[in-house]
């Protein structure tokens, strides 16, 4: 990608304006630095997108071009853009253009350089092999501190490094970002590139990619893929598109049943996005059914916090499983049931059994729930004997 009016400094620090297209053509397939080289691309589709890059402007979007390269027999689909290596706050940095690659989910892959180009650190020193390795780590770290700093905060060109009484200060060369998160002497470069790699371009790429994918393909290829990022991608767009036909719902639920808690977190967005309460409870109870502890708690939280109508079947179904719950689940389930004034003979039967649970907290919780219900004589007898036995512990 390039900013459309891409003004950058060449090595001899002359401002040059080039068009995005010209950059695409003068790239040469030469290996510049060990692993990196620009590869000629012939079949790319150019997309214009508007994004915010905090190194350029915090509020005003800039226009960029990303190129979508469809899959072929060798490569999966990918995207690339030609970007400035650095947008420098101090006007002293040398800018080169490099090519950055993402996979179809907008996940950063790698960078390539034109022949002869290399990244520079402070005082014109070239990046070492180690620096490039570090840069790779930084760009792959989606949670980097660089995410939340603004360009004004990056370095403070002032005063001595110490916390003086009234002037908390830091030396000009020092970055405010943890040393482990930047290549020393190249904080501007790290900042600029991190935001290219992980910033708003990512969602633009995802949107472009999703546009060409039908719902069927979303399910068949992405939801059913074995990578988490593909599944999450599918869930995100199925949810955005509000696709709730029975085939889709079924496919999603099956995946969520197999998947772990992390997948469920994205999956819950899909489940909760439906306006149909019956569908909501059906999905929740099916996922709950096979869930581990974390997943079950997440489902119960969803039910509890949304408080949607039409929960009776859901509660009844969960009632049959209550003997498999741990104490927290029992407690949460019974609390939600109470909130919703739910009771049933199925639940009561299960709870009577639980009066004998080895886990006394569970037995006591069952007792208390039952004590608040209309009970048969037999049930009353059981409760009475429980009370007698555990009087001191209630």
């Amino acid at each position: 990608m390039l900013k459309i009016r891409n003004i950058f400094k060449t090595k001899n620090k002359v401002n040059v304006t080039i068009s995005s297209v010209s950059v695409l053509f003068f790239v040469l397939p030469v290996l510049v630095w060990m692993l990196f080289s620009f590869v000629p691309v012939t079949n790319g589709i150019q997309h214009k997108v508007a994004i915010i890059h905090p190194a350029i402007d915090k509020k005003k979007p800039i226009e960029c071009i990303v190129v979508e390269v469809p899959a072929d027999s060798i490569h999966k689909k990918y995207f690339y853009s030609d970007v400035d290596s650095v947008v420098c706050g101090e006007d002293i940095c040398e800018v080169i253009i490099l090519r950055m690659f993402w996979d179809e989910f907008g996940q950063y892959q790698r960078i390539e350089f034109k022949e002869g180009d290399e990244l520079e650190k402070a005082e014109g020193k070239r990046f070492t092999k180690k620096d490039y390795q570090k840069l790779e780590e930084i760009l792959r770290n989606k949670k980097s501190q660089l995410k939340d700093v603004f360009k004004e905060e990056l370095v403070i060109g002032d005063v001595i490094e110490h916390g003086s009484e009234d002037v908390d200060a830091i030396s000009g060369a020092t970055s405010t970002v943890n040393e482990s998160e930047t290549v020393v002497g190249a904080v501007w470069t790290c900042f600029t590139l991190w935001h290219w790699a992980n910033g708003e371009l990512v969602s633009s790429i995802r949107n472009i990619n999703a546009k060409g994918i039908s719902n069927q393909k979303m399910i068949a290829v992405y939801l059913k893929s074995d990578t988490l990022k593909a599944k999450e991608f599918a869930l995100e767009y199925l949810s955005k598109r509000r696709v709730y036909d029975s085939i889709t719902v079924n496919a999603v639920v099956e995946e969520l049943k197999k998947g772990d808690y992390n997948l469920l977190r994205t999956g819950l967005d899909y489940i909760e996005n439906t306006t149909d309460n019956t569908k909501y409870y059906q999905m929740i109870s099916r996922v709950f059914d096979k869930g581990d502890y974390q997943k079950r708690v997440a489902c119960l939280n969803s039910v509890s916090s949304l408080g949607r109508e039409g929960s009776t079947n859901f509660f009844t179904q969960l009632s049959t499983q209550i003997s498999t719950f741990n104490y927290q689940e029992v407690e949460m389930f019974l609390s939600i049931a109470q909130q919703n004034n739910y009771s049933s003979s199925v639940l009561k039967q299960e709870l009577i059994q639980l009066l004998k649970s080895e886990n006394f907290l569970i037995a006591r919780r069952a007792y208390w729930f039952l004590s608040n219900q209309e009970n048969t004589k037999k049930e009353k007898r059981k409760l009475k004997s429980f009370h007698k036995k555990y009087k001191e512990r209630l």
Partner: protein
Amino acid sequence: MKRRNFIRNVAGVAVASSILPLAASCKSLDGVAEEINKGNGDDEQWHQLGTGKKVPNPNRKKTVTYDVVVVGAGIAGISAAVASARNGAKTVLVNDRPVLGGNASSEIRVTLNGVNRLSTGLAERETGIVEEMLLENRLYNPQESYPVWDHIVYDYVVREPNLTVMLNTQAIGAEMDGTKIVSTRCWQLTTETEFTLKADVFIDCSGDGLMAAKAGALYRTGREGKAEFNESYAPDKADGWQMGASILLQGRDYGKPMPYTPPTFAIKYDGDNAHHERKINNFLDGYWWVELGSNHDIIDVQEDNRHDLMGYLHGVWDYIKNSGKFPESENYALDWVGSLPGRRESRRFIGDHILSETDLTKHRHFEDAIGYGGWSLDEHNPGGILDIKERPSFFHEKFKTVYQVPFSSLYSKNISNLMFAGRNASLTHIALSSTRIQGTCALMGQAVGTAATICVNKGITPREVKNKHIKQLQEMLMRDDVYIPKVVAKDSKDLAKKASAIFGSSTKSGDAKNVINGISRDIDGEINHWQSESVPATFQMEWNNPIKLSKVEIKCDTNLHKNITMRKQPLSEFLKKSFITTVPPELLKVLDLEVRINGSWVKVGEKDRNIARLIKFNFDQVKTTAIRINLKETYGHSTVKLFEVRAYEV
């Protein structure tokens, strides 16, 4: 005060006129209390037109008895007095100024810093009393007004039921019984009254320590030589230098040119030849390096220094406004100028331990640790503003992690019922260069105030607290939300530790059981919290067998890695990384507490505008099997963190 009791002066000889209390008209001062308020009029001097009577000029005197007397209401003294009162001792706080806060008050306006920035770039903010004040200031004083801050502190202090505050009152003497202080004599300027304050325990947090000195407590001033404590930053030979006092200013942009004419007492400032670290980079808040110390006795020269400091301050402002070097200052004018120098250093009293450089830099472990510090070794240059070619401070060394402060530096070696906290504690000059920061002083204050209550309850001395009851002191402090590095809270009365199940409604990070692990902040790379996925959330504890319960105490999140202190200038983009100017968004605002009785939840407490990290619920004792904390709203954050939950029978 009885005649056989005598007031000792600093050197043990007759009191010299130079230490006359404010506005007292003393003729003969042989150390006898009665003399101080005696006049020369006859029996009919005062014609009271209201009553028609002619009576003598009143000789006002009062004797009042407390458990604990705290002298000096800087941050150390306030913390000491509040801790003492809260822990049950009848306490009086005596301050010789009309406002509370010492150097942090509107009279002086020193930024109330703490461990603002370790070398990791992060703050490690102090909790406990000092944080409570800072949080309230953020909520009630968004305009960041210093005079309003005075009143926030005043409110914070006077609302303590066990605490009496005496302003405009100077402690000027001590009456002794052997090595024990029996009472302190005070002069209240505004009521022309001489007070004799009796107590079991005396705490001097006055910075200068007149009362403690009068009691005969050993002290030192000046700089230790390198060898005495093996201090690498100390001078080769001991000398008398004491870091200076400063007068501050605040400027304001009036939006139009504001000419400035210096007063006649201004002293020219040769800014062109000053060291570059004497920065003038803003016109809103200045300038700590306008500083005058002393080579011998800084108390003796205080009034001369005050006059000169006012002159230097105007000299610097004249340089800014009229040298032509700062055209950007054209619209700025002085909005406030101090008249009372803030002091950094004078007497340092001698305790059982003298805290020194290597205790700090080598992170020495003290069995009697009561708090911590972590400001850099920020030793100002000898000479201050008289040596402008020198750096204003040396900032010898920064800390990567916090260091411990021991209790044995906070009580007198030779006066049995005397403690001290703040800048007058038992420290070397180099140690003081770090510990004088107010957050650290506050922790010392909270420790001595708390220790005083142990002394009062058990009828023992501070030294006995150190020798026999230090664990109790540490436990009390930690319960009151003081962090003591490397010390884990193990209060045997805390029923939360015996809970059979602990869980939250959701978990984003940290195990729910972290709330009983005895460490109430994330530190040393370890997570000690439980964090929900979202808000509202609930947090629950259950016991297999019913417990009796009347107190639940929660420590929640205030983001201790950001500073919340009030500053005199807006935050730069850089400082925004480590400072915030609002109530921390992480802080819990709305919550309630339920207990389960006979299977049903019963609400026993709620807070709808909580403003403290340590949230206390006190209620009539109940028999219960579970508690549920409903965490309903924060000041903005979408998750909620708990660091500790405690439960007590009484």
